[in-house]
C-alpha cells in the first residue's frame, strides 16, 4: 500500500510538472518569461566544432635558413581546426573584417633579442626590410547557419601587401553589405612574408589583430 502510494505520488508530481505550463499559458496572467538578449557582431578563431574558441590562436610560418638573399615564407590563416569565424546577430547595415598589426604600422617581427624585420616594407619588392602579403581571394567562405543563410551579400578582399608608404596598414578580409543575421567562417587565407637577406636567426613573432567593424 505504502509503495503504491509513493509511486502514485511520484507519477502525480511528474504529471503536475508537465501540466503546470499548459495551465499557466491559459491563465489571464502569464507566468512564462523568455528573454532574448540583443545579438552581437563578433569574430574569433573557432575549433572544428564551430563553437569552442581556439586558445591563443596563431599562424606558424615554416622555418627558413639564414640566407644571403631575400626569402619568402608562406602560411595559411584558417583551416578546419582554426576557422576564422564571423557571427553577426546584431542589427546593422553591414560590416568589414580587417587585419592589421596590433602594434600599429611601427610594429615589427621581433625575436625578443633586439632582432627585428618589418611586415610593411615601403619598397615595391618588400625585400629591403620585409613585407607581408595577405590573399583572401584564394580562401574558402563557408556559411554556417540556417539553410536560409547564404554568402550572397559577402565579398572577399583582394590580395594585398602591407606597405606603410601606400597607407596599406589594414587588409580587408571580408565585407558584407547586409545586416542579415549570418554566421560563417573563412579558411585558407594566403599569407606570405618576405624575409630580408641575412636576417639573424631566431624565433620571430608579430601580433596581428583581426577587427570586425559595424559600418
Amino acid at each position, binding site marked *: 500500500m505504502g509503495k503504491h502510494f509513493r*509511486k502514485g505520488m*511520484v507519477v502525480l*508530481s*511528474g504529471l503536475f*510538472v508537465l501540466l503546470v505550463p499548459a495551465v499557466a499559458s491559459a491563465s489571464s496572467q502569464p507566468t512564462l518569461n523568455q528573454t532574448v*538578449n*540583443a*545579438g*552581437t*557582431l*563578433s569574430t574569433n*578563431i573557432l575549433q572544428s566544432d564551430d*563553437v569552442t574558441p581556439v586558445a*591563443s590562436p*596563431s599562424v*606558424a*610560418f615554416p622555418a627558413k635558413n639564414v640566407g644571403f638573399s631575400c626569402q619568402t615564407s608562406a*602560411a595559411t*590563416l584558417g583551416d578546419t581546426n582554426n576557422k576564422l569565424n564571423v*557571427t553577426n*546577430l*546584431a*542589427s*546593422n*547595415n*553591414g560590416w*568589414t573584417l*580587417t587585419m*592589421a*598589426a596590433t*602594434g*600599429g*604600422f611601427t610594429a615589427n617581427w*621581433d625575436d625578443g633579442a633586439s632582432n627585428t624585420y618589418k611586415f610593411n616594407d615601403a619598397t615595391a619588392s618588400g625585400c629591403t626590410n620585409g613585407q607581408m602579403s595577405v590573399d583572401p*581571394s584564394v580562401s574558402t567562405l563557408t556559411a554556417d547557419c540556417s539553410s536560409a543563410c547564404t554568402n550572397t551579400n559577402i*565579398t*572577399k*578582399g*583582394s590580395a*594585398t601587401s602591407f606597405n606603410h608608404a601606400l*597607407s596599406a*596598414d*589594414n*587588409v*580587408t578580409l571580408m*565585407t*558584407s*553589405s547586409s*545586416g542579415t543575421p549570418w554566421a560563417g567562417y573563412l579558411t585558407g587565407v594566403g599569407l606570405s612574408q618576405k624575409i630580408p637577406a641575412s636576417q639573424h636567426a631566431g624565433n*620571430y*613573432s*608579430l*601580433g*596581428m*589583430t*583581426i*577587427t*570586425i*567593424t559595424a*559600418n
Partner: protein
Amino acid sequence: MKKFSSLTVLVFTMLLLVVPAVVSAAEYGGVGGRPAYPRADNSRTKSIFIFQLKDGQTATDGVRIYNNTAKQQTISVYAVDSALSSGGGFACRQAADPREDVGSWLKLQANTVTLPANGSKVVPFTITAPARADAGEHDGCIALQARSASNTPSDRSGVVLSFRSAIRVVVTVPGKIVKKLTLATVAVSKLKDGSYTIAPTVRNDGNVSLDTDVRVELVSFTGLHAGKRSGGTYPVLSRSQATWNFEAKSPFWGGWYRAQVRATYNSNPTTTLGMDKGSSQSVRLASAVFFVPPSSTASFIYVAILLVLLAAAILIVKKQRDIRHIRKHWEVFEVENGVTVTSLAKQHHTSWRKIVRVNKLKPPYNLKAGQKLSLPPNKAFVPAPVPKSARNTRK
C-alpha cells in the same frame, strides 16, 4: 525494479525543470556593442554612431556593451581613428596608433568593463568637435576587446592573433558638403573554379562617405541577361576608392559577355548618412566584352547539335548529288513483259527502292509492259533504250 521506475520518473521530472535553464545559457555570439540610444529618425544609428557637430560643439551618447558568452568577461573599451583598408574598406586603427581625429575627440567614461555571462552595460561618452575642424565627414571607432581575446606574442613564433569588434563613429562638420561618385573601372577575372570575379572600382571625390548601392550583372552580348544580379549597399569613404569582388557563376551556355555595373547614391548634399531621402543619382559602367567558354555539358550539347547538323548537311548534299547524277546519267527504258522492280534493280546494279523513288512508283510496284522507267544505263543488258524523242520528261 520499482525503485528504478520511480527514479526514472524523478529524473525525467528534474530534466524538465533543468533543461530550460541550460538552453538559456547556450552561447550565441561573443563580445560586442551597439549605440545605446539610437535615434528614431535614423535607422543607421541602431548600428553606428552618427553625429553632426559644429566647431567646438559637444554631444553625449553611450555605447551598450554586451557579453553574449557563457563566461564573465573583462572588456577594454577605447576610441581610435578610422583607417582605410585595402579595397576601400572601413577599418579602425589600433590602440597603439596615435589619435589625431575622432579617436581624440571622444572621451569614454570607462575604459574597462567587467560583465557577467550574458550581461550588458552602457558606457557613456562625450564627443567634441575641435575648433576649426574641416567641413565634411570625420570617422573613428569605438573598439571593444575582451581581455581573453587579446593575445601577446611573448613566447611564440609566427603571427599571434587577437580579435576585437568595433563600431563606426561618424561626425559630420557642417560647411561645404560635396557628394560626388564616379565609377572608375570594371575588372573581370576568372577564378580557378571556373567562376568569375567582377570587381568594380568606384571613386568618391566628395568630403562625406556615401552609402552606395552597387549592382553587378553579367549580360550576354545579345543583350539577354545571363545571371542573377549581385551587389549590395556599401559605404564608400570620402576621398577614396573602393573595390568589391563580386563572384559570378560562369554562364552555362558560354558566349560573349560584358559585366554591367550600376552604382546609386544619394546626391543631395543636405541629407546626412542614414537620412537618404530625396534625390539619388546613378552612375553606370560596363566592362569590355569578354568570352566565356561554355560548361562541359553545354559543350557536349553544342557538339551533338553540330554533329546532327553536319550529318543533315551531308545527307542533303549526297541527295542533291544523287539527283544530279540521275538526271545526267539515267536513261528511260521501256518495260518488257514479266519484268519486276527487283529484277530491274538487279539488272541495272541499283536498289529497287531507288527505282521506286525516282520513278515515283506506288505499292505494290507492279510494272506493265511498255511502261517507261528511268534506270541506270546497263551495258550488259537491255541495250536499246527508248529514243530521246520518245522519253517522258522526268521531274
